[in-house]
Protein backbone atom coordinates (compact mmCIF):
# COMPACT_ATOMS: atom_id res chain seq x y z
CA UNK A 1 0.00 0.00 0.00
CA UNK A 2 2.96 2.33 -0.49
CA UNK A 3 1.85 5.76 -1.61
CA UNK A 4 4.02 7.62 -4.05
CA UNK A 5 4.64 11.11 -2.72
CA UNK A 6 3.19 13.84 -4.93
CA UNK A 7 5.74 16.55 -5.44
CA UNK A 8 4.90 20.27 -5.14
CA UNK A 9 1.65 19.72 -3.28
CA UNK A 10 0.58 22.77 -1.33
CA UNK A 11 -1.95 23.25 1.46
CA UNK A 12 -4.58 25.99 1.12
CA UNK A 13 -5.29 28.08 4.20
CA UNK A 14 -8.09 30.63 4.41
CA UNK A 15 -7.62 33.35 7.04
CA UNK A 16 -10.66 35.22 8.40
CA UNK A 17 -9.86 38.18 6.17
CA UNK A 18 -8.18 38.18 2.75
CA UNK A 19 -7.42 35.50 0.21
CA UNK A 20 -6.37 31.88 0.46
CA UNK A 21 -2.69 31.44 1.26
CA UNK A 22 -0.81 28.41 -0.09
CA UNK A 23 1.87 26.80 2.08
CA UNK A 24 4.21 23.88 1.55
CA UNK A 25 3.42 20.66 3.46
CA UNK A 26 6.68 21.12 5.32
CA UNK A 27 5.51 24.47 6.73
CA UNK A 28 1.98 23.19 7.36
CA UNK A 29 3.39 20.26 9.30
CA UNK A 30 4.81 22.63 11.89
CA UNK A 31 1.31 23.93 12.66
CA UNK A 32 -0.27 21.23 14.80
CA UNK A 33 -3.79 22.55 14.18
CA UNK A 34 -3.33 22.34 10.40
CA UNK A 35 -1.69 18.96 10.75
CA UNK A 36 -4.78 17.50 12.38
CA UNK A 37 -6.88 18.81 9.45
CA UNK A 38 -4.53 17.14 7.00
CA UNK A 39 -4.66 13.85 8.86
CA UNK A 40 -8.45 13.89 8.76
CA UNK A 41 -9.95 11.40 6.24
CA UNK A 42 -12.07 14.04 4.55
CA UNK A 43 -9.02 16.10 3.65
CA UNK A 44 -8.20 16.25 -0.07
CA UNK A 45 -5.02 18.17 -0.70
CA UNK A 46 -6.01 19.47 -4.14
CA UNK A 47 -9.41 20.85 -3.23
CA UNK A 48 -9.77 21.30 0.54
CA UNK A 49 -9.35 24.83 1.82
CA UNK A 50 -8.71 24.91 5.54
CA UNK A 51 -10.67 27.76 7.16
CA UNK A 52 -8.91 29.67 9.93
CA UNK A 53 -11.63 31.86 11.48
CA UNK A 54 -9.37 32.90 14.38
CA UNK A 55 -6.38 34.00 12.33
CA UNK A 56 -5.99 37.10 10.17
CA UNK A 57 -4.10 37.16 6.88
CA UNK A 58 -1.49 39.41 8.51
CA UNK A 59 -0.92 37.00 11.40
CA UNK A 60 -0.83 33.96 9.14
CA UNK A 61 1.67 35.49 6.74
CA UNK A 62 3.91 36.62 9.63
CA UNK A 63 3.96 33.10 11.02
CA UNK A 64 4.65 31.62 7.59
CA UNK A 65 7.45 34.17 7.04
CA UNK A 66 9.04 33.15 10.30
CA UNK A 67 8.81 29.42 9.57
CA UNK A 68 10.04 29.85 6.02
CA UNK A 69 13.06 31.82 7.07
CA UNK A 70 13.96 29.46 9.87
CA UNK A 71 13.47 26.26 7.91
CA UNK A 72 15.74 27.58 5.16
CA UNK A 73 18.48 28.57 7.53
CA UNK A 74 18.69 25.49 9.72
CA UNK A 75 21.82 23.50 10.43
CA UNK A 76 24.27 25.92 8.87
CA UNK A 77 27.26 27.91 9.99
CA UNK A 78 27.93 30.93 12.20
CA UNK A 79 27.37 33.65 9.62
CA UNK A 80 23.86 32.22 9.11
CA UNK A 81 23.23 32.47 12.86
CA UNK A 82 24.14 36.13 12.58
CA UNK A 83 21.62 36.78 9.80
CA UNK A 84 18.96 34.71 11.59
CA UNK A 85 19.41 36.92 14.64
CA UNK A 86 19.00 39.95 12.43
CA UNK A 87 15.85 38.52 10.88
CA UNK A 88 14.38 37.84 14.33
CA UNK A 89 15.16 41.37 15.51
CA UNK A 90 13.59 42.91 12.41
CA UNK A 91 10.59 40.62 12.79
CA UNK A 92 9.96 41.92 16.32
CA UNK A 93 10.80 45.52 15.57
CA UNK A 94 7.93 45.72 13.11
CA UNK A 95 5.45 44.47 15.71
CA UNK A 96 3.79 46.83 18.13
CA UNK A 97 2.86 45.35 21.50
CA UNK A 98 -0.75 44.74 20.49
CA UNK A 99 0.30 43.05 17.28
CA UNK A 100 2.77 40.89 19.19
CA UNK A 101 0.00 39.76 21.52
CA UNK A 102 -2.36 39.04 18.63
CA UNK A 103 0.36 37.01 16.99
CA UNK A 104 0.82 35.07 20.21
CA UNK A 105 -2.89 34.22 20.08
CA UNK A 106 -2.59 33.09 16.47
CA UNK A 107 0.52 31.00 17.12
CA UNK A 108 -1.27 29.42 20.06
CA UNK A 109 -4.36 28.66 17.98
CA UNK A 110 -2.28 27.16 15.18
CA UNK A 111 -0.16 25.42 17.81
CA UNK A 112 3.17 26.07 16.17
CA UNK A 113 5.89 25.40 18.71
CA UNK A 114 8.80 27.19 17.08
CA UNK A 115 6.90 30.47 16.78
CA UNK A 116 5.39 30.10 20.25
CA UNK A 117 8.83 29.65 21.78
CA UNK A 118 10.14 32.64 19.92
CA UNK A 119 7.22 34.91 20.85
CA UNK A 120 7.12 33.82 24.50
CA UNK A 121 10.83 34.59 24.75
CA UNK A 122 10.17 37.98 23.16
CA UNK A 123 7.39 38.74 25.66
CA UNK A 124 9.63 37.62 28.52
CA UNK A 125 12.39 39.94 27.30
CA UNK A 126 9.88 42.78 27.17
CA UNK A 127 8.52 42.38 30.67
CA UNK A 128 11.70 41.23 32.45
CA UNK A 129 12.45 43.68 35.28
CA UNK A 130 9.49 45.90 34.41
CA UNK A 131 7.15 47.26 37.09
CA UNK A 132 3.97 45.48 38.18
CA UNK A 133 2.04 48.33 36.56
CA UNK A 134 3.78 47.79 33.23
CA UNK A 135 3.24 44.02 33.29
CA UNK A 136 -0.45 44.38 34.24
CA UNK A 137 -0.95 46.81 31.39
CA UNK A 138 0.97 44.61 28.98
CA UNK A 139 -1.10 41.52 29.71
CA UNK A 140 -4.33 43.49 30.16
CA UNK A 141 -4.64 42.13 33.69
CA UNK A 142 -7.27 43.73 35.89
CA UNK A 143 -6.10 43.70 39.48
CA UNK A 144 -8.81 41.86 41.42
CA UNK A 145 -6.96 41.93 44.73
CA UNK A 146 -8.04 44.28 47.46
CA UNK A 147 -5.28 46.54 48.76
CA UNK A 148 -4.99 44.30 51.82
CA UNK A 149 -4.79 41.12 49.79
CA UNK A 150 -2.07 42.52 47.56
CA UNK A 151 -0.12 43.63 50.62
CA UNK A 152 -0.53 40.16 52.03
CA UNK A 153 0.89 38.53 48.88
CA UNK A 154 3.87 40.86 49.00
CA UNK A 155 4.38 40.08 52.67
CA UNK A 156 4.16 36.30 52.34
CA UNK A 157 6.42 36.42 49.29
CA UNK A 158 8.80 38.95 50.81
CA UNK A 159 11.71 36.66 49.90
CA UNK A 160 10.95 37.33 46.23
CA UNK A 161 10.52 41.09 46.53
CA UNK A 162 13.87 41.85 48.16
CA UNK A 163 15.37 44.94 46.57
CA UNK A 164 12.29 45.63 44.44
CA UNK A 165 10.98 49.18 44.56
CA UNK A 166 7.30 49.69 45.14
CA UNK A 167 5.41 51.34 42.29
Amino acid at each position, binding site marked *: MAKTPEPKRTISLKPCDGDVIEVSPMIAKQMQTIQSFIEDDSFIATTTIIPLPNVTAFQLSKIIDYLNYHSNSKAVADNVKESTKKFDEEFLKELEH*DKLKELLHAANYLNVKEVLDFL*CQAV*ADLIQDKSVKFVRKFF*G*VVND*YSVEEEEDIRRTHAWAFEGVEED
Partner: protein
Amino acid sequence: MSRRKHSEIESKDLLSDLPDSILLHVLNFLRTKHAVQTSVLSMRWEHLWKRLTNLKFDSSHFPTSTHFTEFVSSILSNRDNSISLQNVSLRHPDYFSPEILQSFIEYVVSHGIQHLTLDTKFTELPPCIFSCRSLTFLKISNLSTSLRKTILPESLGFPALKTLHLDNVGFITSDDNEYAEPFSTCNMLTTLVIANSFEKGLRVYNSSLTSLTISTSHQYDHEEAHSYKIALSTPRLSSLETNGYLVYQLSSTCNLLHLEDVNFDVTCSFRNFPSKSSVLITWLHVFTNVRTMAISSKTLEMLNVLLFHPSKRTNLPCFSRLKSIKVELGSLSRISSDMEVNRIIEYLLENSPPTSVDIYH
Protein backbone atom coordinates in the same frame (compact mmCIF):
# COMPACT_ATOMS: atom_id res chain seq x y z
CA MET B 1 -6.05 58.43 36.84
CA SER B 2 -9.45 57.74 35.28
CA ARG B 3 -7.89 57.81 31.80
CA ARG B 4 -5.41 55.17 32.86
CA LYS B 5 -8.19 52.95 34.18
CA HIS B 6 -10.03 53.37 30.91
CA SER B 7 -7.12 52.23 28.77
CA GLU B 8 -6.54 49.29 31.10
CA ILE B 9 -10.06 48.09 30.61
CA GLU B 10 -9.81 48.57 26.86
CA SER B 11 -6.70 46.45 26.61
CA LYS B 12 -8.24 43.80 28.84
CA ASP B 13 -8.80 40.38 27.29
CA LEU B 14 -6.03 40.88 24.78
CA LEU B 15 -4.02 38.22 26.52
CA SER B 16 -6.26 37.31 29.39
CA ASP B 17 -7.91 34.48 27.50
CA LEU B 18 -4.58 32.86 26.76
CA PRO B 19 -4.35 29.51 28.50
CA ASP B 20 -2.19 29.17 31.58
CA SER B 21 0.20 27.02 29.56
CA ILE B 22 1.16 30.03 27.42
CA LEU B 23 1.51 32.38 30.39
CA LEU B 24 3.69 29.74 32.03
CA HIS B 25 5.66 29.46 28.83
CA VAL B 26 6.47 33.18 29.15
CA LEU B 27 7.21 32.88 32.89
CA ASN B 28 9.61 30.04 32.19
CA PHE B 29 11.78 32.44 30.20
CA LEU B 30 11.98 34.95 33.06
CA ARG B 31 14.44 35.00 35.91
CA THR B 32 12.65 33.10 38.62
CA LYS B 33 12.66 36.05 41.00
CA HIS B 34 10.67 38.08 38.53
CA ALA B 35 8.40 35.16 37.70
CA VAL B 36 7.39 34.86 41.37
CA GLN B 37 6.70 38.58 41.50
CA THR B 38 3.91 38.13 38.95
CA SER B 39 1.87 36.62 41.80
CA VAL B 40 0.77 40.18 42.69
CA LEU B 41 -0.70 40.86 39.22
CA SER B 42 -4.08 39.30 39.99
CA MET B 43 -5.65 36.23 41.62
CA ARG B 44 -5.24 34.24 38.44
CA TRP B 45 -1.48 34.79 38.60
CA GLU B 46 -1.07 34.11 42.31
CA HIS B 47 -0.16 30.45 42.01
CA LEU B 48 0.95 30.31 38.39
CA TRP B 49 4.68 30.48 39.17
CA LYS B 50 4.39 27.36 41.33
CA ARG B 51 4.10 25.33 38.14
CA LEU B 52 7.32 26.65 36.58
CA THR B 53 9.43 23.93 34.98
CA ASN B 54 12.44 26.18 34.40
CA LEU B 55 14.12 27.87 37.33
CA LYS B 56 16.81 30.50 36.99
CA PHE B 57 18.56 31.46 40.20
CA ASP B 58 21.04 34.29 39.99
CA SER B 59 22.43 35.77 43.19
CA SER B 60 23.42 39.02 41.50
CA HIS B 61 19.78 40.10 41.87
CA PHE B 62 19.85 39.75 45.64
CA PRO B 63 21.39 42.14 48.18
CA THR B 64 23.13 39.44 50.22
CA SER B 65 24.06 35.80 50.07
CA THR B 66 21.58 35.12 52.89
CA HIS B 67 18.70 36.64 50.93
CA PHE B 68 19.62 34.52 47.94
CA THR B 69 19.80 31.33 49.98
CA GLU B 70 16.42 32.09 51.53
CA PHE B 71 14.97 32.67 48.08
CA VAL B 72 16.24 29.35 46.72
CA SER B 73 14.84 27.37 49.65
CA SER B 74 11.53 29.28 49.58
CA ILE B 75 11.05 28.42 45.91
CA LEU B 76 11.71 24.75 46.49
CA SER B 77 9.41 24.54 49.50
CA ASN B 78 6.56 26.58 47.97
CA ARG B 79 6.43 25.32 44.39
CA ASP B 80 4.01 22.62 43.28
CA ASN B 81 5.82 19.39 44.08
CA SER B 82 3.94 17.39 41.48
CA ILE B 83 5.47 19.38 38.62
CA SER B 84 8.71 18.03 37.13
CA LEU B 85 11.65 20.28 36.43
CA GLN B 86 13.20 20.67 33.01
CA ASN B 87 15.82 23.33 33.10
CA VAL B 88 17.44 24.72 36.25
CA SER B 89 20.39 27.05 36.54
CA LEU B 90 22.05 28.40 39.64
CA ARG B 91 24.64 31.15 39.61
CA HIS B 92 26.25 32.26 42.82
CA PRO B 93 29.87 33.43 42.71
CA ASP B 94 30.28 33.00 46.46
CA TYR B 95 30.74 29.88 48.44
CA PHE B 96 27.45 28.07 48.80
CA SER B 97 26.84 26.20 52.01
CA PRO B 98 27.44 22.51 51.21
CA GLU B 99 24.22 21.48 53.00
CA ILE B 100 22.10 23.91 50.97
CA LEU B 101 23.74 22.88 47.72
CA GLN B 102 23.28 19.25 48.60
CA SER B 103 19.56 19.60 49.34
CA PHE B 104 19.15 21.76 46.24
CA ILE B 105 20.67 19.08 44.02
CA GLU B 106 18.75 16.31 45.77
CA TYR B 107 15.53 18.25 45.14
CA VAL B 108 16.13 18.82 41.43
CA VAL B 109 17.31 15.25 40.88
CA SER B 110 14.19 13.87 42.57
CA HIS B 111 12.04 16.10 40.33
CA GLY B 112 13.18 14.74 36.98
CA ILE B 113 15.68 17.48 36.14
CA GLN B 114 16.83 17.40 32.50
CA HIS B 115 19.17 20.39 32.13
CA LEU B 116 21.23 21.62 35.05
CA THR B 117 23.72 24.48 35.10
CA LEU B 118 25.74 25.25 38.23
CA ASP B 119 28.08 28.22 38.49
CA THR B 120 29.27 28.53 42.07
CA LYS B 121 32.06 27.65 44.45
CA PHE B 122 31.84 24.10 45.67
CA THR B 123 34.14 21.19 46.36
CA GLU B 124 31.96 18.17 45.75
CA LEU B 125 28.58 17.10 44.45
CA PRO B 126 26.12 14.76 46.18
CA PRO B 127 26.23 11.20 44.81
CA CYS B 128 22.58 11.23 43.64
CA ILE B 129 23.46 13.43 40.66
CA PHE B 130 25.77 10.83 39.13
CA SER B 131 23.02 8.23 38.95
CA CYS B 132 20.29 10.65 37.79
CA ARG B 133 18.29 9.02 34.97
CA SER B 134 16.63 12.18 33.67
CA LEU B 135 19.67 14.43 33.38
CA THR B 136 20.69 14.97 29.74
CA PHE B 137 22.60 18.24 30.01
CA LEU B 138 24.98 19.28 32.77
CA LYS B 139 27.22 22.30 32.96
CA ILE B 140 29.29 22.85 36.08
CA SER B 141 31.68 25.72 36.58
CA ASN B 142 33.53 26.00 39.82
CA LEU B 143 33.99 29.74 40.28
CA SER B 144 36.59 29.34 42.99
CA THR B 145 39.88 30.97 42.01
CA SER B 146 41.85 29.24 44.72
CA LEU B 147 43.42 25.86 44.16
CA ARG B 148 40.66 24.32 46.21
CA LYS B 149 39.00 22.57 43.33
CA THR B 150 35.81 20.70 42.82
CA ILE B 151 36.71 17.04 42.82
CA LEU B 152 34.51 14.56 41.00
CA PRO B 153 34.61 10.81 41.44
CA GLU B 154 36.84 8.47 39.52
CA SER B 155 34.00 7.34 37.33
CA LEU B 156 31.10 9.65 36.61
CA GLY B 157 28.11 7.48 35.77
CA PHE B 158 25.45 9.82 34.31
CA PRO B 159 23.31 7.17 32.58
CA ALA B 160 21.34 9.60 30.37
CA LEU B 161 23.74 12.49 29.99
CA LYS B 162 24.33 13.71 26.43
CA THR B 163 26.14 16.99 27.04
CA LEU B 164 28.67 17.71 29.76
CA HIS B 165 30.56 20.96 30.35
CA LEU B 166 33.16 21.00 33.09
CA ASP B 167 35.03 24.13 34.08
CA ASN B 168 37.68 24.21 36.80
CA VAL B 169 36.83 20.73 37.98
CA GLY B 170 39.21 17.93 38.90
CA PHE B 171 38.96 14.18 39.25
CA ILE B 172 40.00 11.58 41.72
CA THR B 173 42.68 9.29 40.36
CA SER B 174 43.63 6.08 42.03
CA ASP B 175 47.27 6.00 43.04
CA ASP B 176 48.40 3.37 40.58
CA ASN B 177 46.86 5.16 37.58
CA GLU B 178 48.69 7.77 35.61
CA TYR B 179 45.46 8.94 34.03
CA ALA B 180 42.06 9.88 35.40
CA GLU B 181 39.44 8.15 33.28
CA PRO B 182 36.06 9.58 34.33
CA PHE B 183 33.96 9.38 31.15
CA SER B 184 34.05 5.72 30.19
CA THR B 185 30.73 4.97 31.90
CA CYS B 186 28.78 7.86 30.31
CA ASN B 187 27.10 5.72 27.67
CA MET B 188 24.95 8.44 26.08
CA LEU B 189 27.52 11.21 26.05
CA THR B 190 27.95 12.97 22.69
CA THR B 191 29.27 16.42 23.62
CA LEU B 192 32.01 17.14 26.13
CA VAL B 193 33.61 20.44 27.03
CA ILE B 194 36.59 20.40 29.37
CA ALA B 195 37.77 23.80 30.51
CA ASN B 196 40.58 24.61 32.94
CA SER B 197 40.95 21.10 34.17
CA PHE B 198 44.60 20.73 35.06
CA GLU B 199 45.04 17.03 35.44
CA LYS B 200 48.48 15.54 35.12
CA GLY B 201 46.84 12.89 33.03
CA LEU B 202 43.29 12.70 31.70
CA ARG B 203 41.98 9.94 29.47
CA VAL B 204 38.83 10.67 27.51
CA TYR B 205 37.64 7.14 26.94
CA ASN B 206 34.15 7.11 25.48
CA SER B 207 32.63 5.28 22.54
CA SER B 208 29.64 7.58 21.93
CA LEU B 209 31.37 10.95 22.06
CA THR B 210 31.21 12.95 18.81
CA SER B 211 32.18 16.46 19.88
CA LEU B 212 34.98 17.51 22.21
CA THR B 213 36.18 20.96 23.23
CA ILE B 214 39.27 21.54 25.34
CA SER B 215 39.86 25.06 26.54
CA THR B 216 42.21 26.73 28.95
CA SER B 217 41.65 30.33 29.87
CA HIS B 218 44.58 30.83 32.22
CA GLN B 219 48.12 31.30 31.17
CA TYR B 220 49.69 28.21 32.71
CA ASP B 221 53.26 28.59 31.90
CA HIS B 222 55.56 26.67 34.16
CA GLU B 223 57.63 23.92 32.65
CA GLU B 224 55.85 21.11 34.46
CA ALA B 225 52.55 21.91 32.77
CA HIS B 226 53.94 20.83 29.43
CA SER B 227 54.13 17.27 30.62
CA TYR B 228 50.37 17.26 31.33
CA LYS B 229 48.59 14.90 29.03
CA ILE B 230 45.18 14.25 27.55
CA ALA B 231 44.73 10.91 25.85
CA LEU B 232 41.75 10.30 23.60
CA SER B 233 40.06 7.03 23.09
CA THR B 234 37.03 8.27 21.23
CA PRO B 235 36.41 6.32 18.01
CA ARG B 236 33.28 8.29 17.02
CA LEU B 237 34.76 11.75 17.45
CA SER B 238 33.81 14.02 14.55
CA SER B 239 34.43 17.48 15.92
CA LEU B 240 37.37 18.66 17.99
CA GLU B 241 37.86 22.19 19.17
CA THR B 242 40.51 23.75 21.32
CA ASN B 243 40.83 27.32 22.46
CA GLY B 244 42.68 29.48 24.94
CA TYR B 245 46.22 28.52 25.91
CA LEU B 246 48.15 25.53 24.73
CA VAL B 247 48.85 23.39 27.78
CA TYR B 248 48.35 19.67 27.30
CA GLN B 249 50.12 17.15 25.20
CA LEU B 250 47.45 15.37 23.22
CA SER B 251 47.47 11.79 22.03
CA SER B 252 44.95 9.33 20.69
CA THR B 253 44.84 5.58 20.99
CA CYS B 254 42.59 5.25 17.95
CA ASN B 255 42.78 6.75 14.47
CA LEU B 256 39.82 9.15 14.76
CA LEU B 257 38.57 8.07 11.33
CA HIS B 258 35.36 10.08 11.72
CA LEU B 259 37.06 13.36 12.47
CA GLU B 260 35.36 15.98 10.28
CA ASP B 261 36.15 19.35 11.81
CA VAL B 262 38.96 20.71 13.87
CA ASN B 263 38.85 24.23 15.24
CA PHE B 264 42.35 25.15 16.32
CA ASP B 265 42.36 28.41 18.24
CA VAL B 266 45.11 28.35 20.84
CA THR B 267 47.98 30.56 21.77
CA CYS B 268 50.94 30.45 24.12
CA SER B 269 53.57 32.80 25.41
CA PHE B 270 56.75 32.25 23.51
CA ARG B 271 58.74 31.60 26.64
CA ASN B 272 60.04 28.00 26.71
CA PHE B 273 59.00 27.70 23.13
CA PRO B 274 60.97 24.51 22.40
CA SER B 275 58.92 22.52 24.92
CA LYS B 276 55.70 24.14 23.67
CA SER B 277 56.49 23.35 20.09
CA SER B 278 56.68 19.66 20.89
CA VAL B 279 53.29 19.99 22.63
CA LEU B 280 51.93 21.65 19.50
CA ILE B 281 53.24 18.86 17.31
CA THR B 282 51.34 16.28 19.41
CA TRP B 283 48.06 18.06 18.56
CA LEU B 284 48.79 18.13 14.85
CA HIS B 285 49.37 14.38 14.92
CA VAL B 286 45.96 13.79 16.50
CA PHE B 287 44.38 15.88 13.70
CA THR B 288 45.85 13.60 10.99
CA ASN B 289 42.52 12.34 9.64
CA VAL B 290 40.58 15.59 9.76
CA ARG B 291 38.52 16.84 6.78
CA THR B 292 38.29 20.55 7.52
CA MET B 293 40.54 22.52 9.79
CA ALA B 294 39.93 26.07 10.97
CA ILE B 295 42.97 27.93 12.25
CA SER B 296 42.83 31.22 14.12
CA SER B 297 45.38 33.97 13.59
CA LYS B 298 46.86 33.39 17.07
CA THR B 299 47.43 29.74 16.23
CA LEU B 300 48.83 30.71 12.87
CA GLU B 301 51.42 32.93 14.58
CA MET B 302 52.42 29.99 16.75
CA LEU B 303 52.68 27.71 13.73
CA ASN B 304 54.74 30.37 12.01
CA VAL B 305 57.36 30.34 14.77
CA LEU B 306 57.32 26.57 14.94
CA LEU B 307 57.52 25.94 11.23
CA PHE B 308 60.35 28.39 10.80
CA HIS B 309 62.64 25.62 12.02
CA PRO B 310 63.11 23.08 9.22
CA SER B 311 63.95 20.38 11.76
CA LYS B 312 60.43 20.69 13.23
CA ARG B 313 58.83 20.37 9.82
CA THR B 314 60.11 16.86 9.38
CA ASN B 315 57.93 15.84 12.33
CA LEU B 316 54.71 17.00 10.73
CA PRO B 317 51.99 14.45 10.03
CA CYS B 318 50.48 13.71 6.66
CA PHE B 319 46.93 15.10 6.59
CA SER B 320 45.73 12.59 4.03
CA ARG B 321 41.97 13.30 4.18
CA LEU B 322 42.16 17.07 4.55
CA LYS B 323 39.72 18.83 2.18
CA SER B 324 40.04 22.42 3.27
CA ILE B 325 41.77 24.78 5.64
CA LYS B 326 40.09 27.96 6.83
CA VAL B 327 42.19 30.71 8.27
CA GLU B 328 40.60 33.59 10.11
CA LEU B 329 42.76 36.68 10.33
CA GLY B 330 41.75 39.09 13.07
CA SER B 331 42.24 42.81 12.54
CA LEU B 332 45.05 42.80 15.12
CA SER B 333 46.79 39.82 13.64
CA ARG B 334 50.53 40.14 13.13
CA ILE B 335 50.17 38.09 10.00
CA SER B 336 48.17 40.07 7.50
CA SER B 337 49.01 39.14 3.94
CA ASP B 338 47.55 36.16 2.11
CA MET B 339 51.03 35.40 0.84
CA GLU B 340 52.34 34.97 4.35
CA VAL B 341 49.40 32.75 5.29
CA ASN B 342 49.91 30.58 2.24
CA ARG B 343 53.58 30.18 3.05
CA ILE B 344 52.82 28.97 6.60
CA ILE B 345 50.10 26.61 5.37
CA GLU B 346 52.45 25.28 2.74
CA TYR B 347 54.95 24.43 5.47
CA LEU B 348 52.21 22.89 7.59
CA LEU B 349 51.18 20.66 4.69
CA GLU B 350 54.71 19.78 3.73
CA ASN B 351 54.04 16.07 4.14
CA SER B 352 50.43 16.19 2.92
CA PRO B 353 48.57 16.27 -0.39
CA PRO B 354 47.48 19.73 -1.57
CA THR B 355 44.21 21.13 -0.24
CA SER B 356 42.13 24.29 -0.60
CA VAL B 357 42.90 27.25 1.65
CA ASP B 358 40.30 29.92 2.41
CA ILE B 359 41.41 33.07 4.14
CA TYR B 360 38.85 35.24 5.95
CA HIS B 361 39.73 38.75 7.06
